[in-house]
């Protein structure tokens, strides 16, 4: 159907500029993803402690050296352990953490699919 094809093409054209145009590492975003180790549940961005001040300097240095965000987190994890980052790394310990939610999503979708499909079956008979 010609109309549908035209719509599809316009659609595809619109989709091209969608990808991100800004990939710089932003210091304040990195601060938010790091935990202040001497505080009770605050991030480096939120904390006014000595430790937070020091970590901010180290992060800024690394950004200026051109390090990528993941490299900065890995560096700090090697020094302080995984506890320091709020972004759990995807390794064998945290595998379940990242996969279980999606497993639930797929399971839910499957259940709905079964419910709707059963009806189609009944209708056919």
């Amino acid at each position, binding site marked *: 159907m010609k109309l549908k094809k035209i719509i599809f093409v316009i659609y595809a054209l619109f989709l091209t500029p969608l990808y991100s145009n800004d990939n710089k590492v932003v210091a304040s975003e990195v601060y938010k993803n790091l935990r202040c180790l001497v505080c009770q549940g605050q991030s480096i961005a939120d904390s006014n402690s000595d430790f937070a001040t*020091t*970590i901010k300097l180290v992060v800024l240095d690394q950004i200026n050296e051109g390090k990528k965000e993941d490299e900065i987190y890995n560096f700090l994890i090697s020094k*302080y352990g995984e506890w320091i980052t709020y972004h759990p790394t995807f390794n064998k310990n945290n595998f379940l953490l990242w996969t279980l939610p999606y497993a639930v999503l797929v399971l839910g979708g499957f259940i709905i699919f079964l419910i709707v499909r059963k009806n189609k079956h009944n209708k056919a008979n």
Partner: protein
Amino acid sequence: MKISISKIIIFSFIIFSFLIFWQGLKKNNDYDTKNLIGNKISNFQLIDLNNEKKLITEEDLRKNEYTLINFFASWCSPCRTEHEYLLKLSNKKIRIIGINFKDKKSNAISFLEELGNPYDFIGKDKNGKISVLFGIYGIPETLIVDSSLIVIKKYIGPIDQNQYDEILKLIQ
């Protein structure tokens, strides 16, 4: 109620979660960086507090069987309580390096004049960035490193009598 696999699984999971929570209640919530033990220390460069031109790197530590690295500052009161143990250790077979953390040079020198200087070398860490290389998050903290640059002991907070005895046993 018929017994079936799914019901067994559900009930087991509930009991399992209950046990986990119960254990979780008993656990200590405070985090410390004991994980650094067994890691190799990273490359560093320490500039002497008194002499800008004098510096040491990690290579210098390979010459010692054991090195004690102690982070301190003049404004830190627990650092005072552990100082006597550092002084005692300075006469033993262990090289003691002090890193003066976020401090004014004059205050650090007066601190050491008042309490005594146990350090074979004093490095300065004006803005704290060097402490991050060593995985330090508060002071005082002390690390014991062997000749292959592996961290074998980590003490968070001031050294007490028990920890002093532990260090003595280690270096005998």
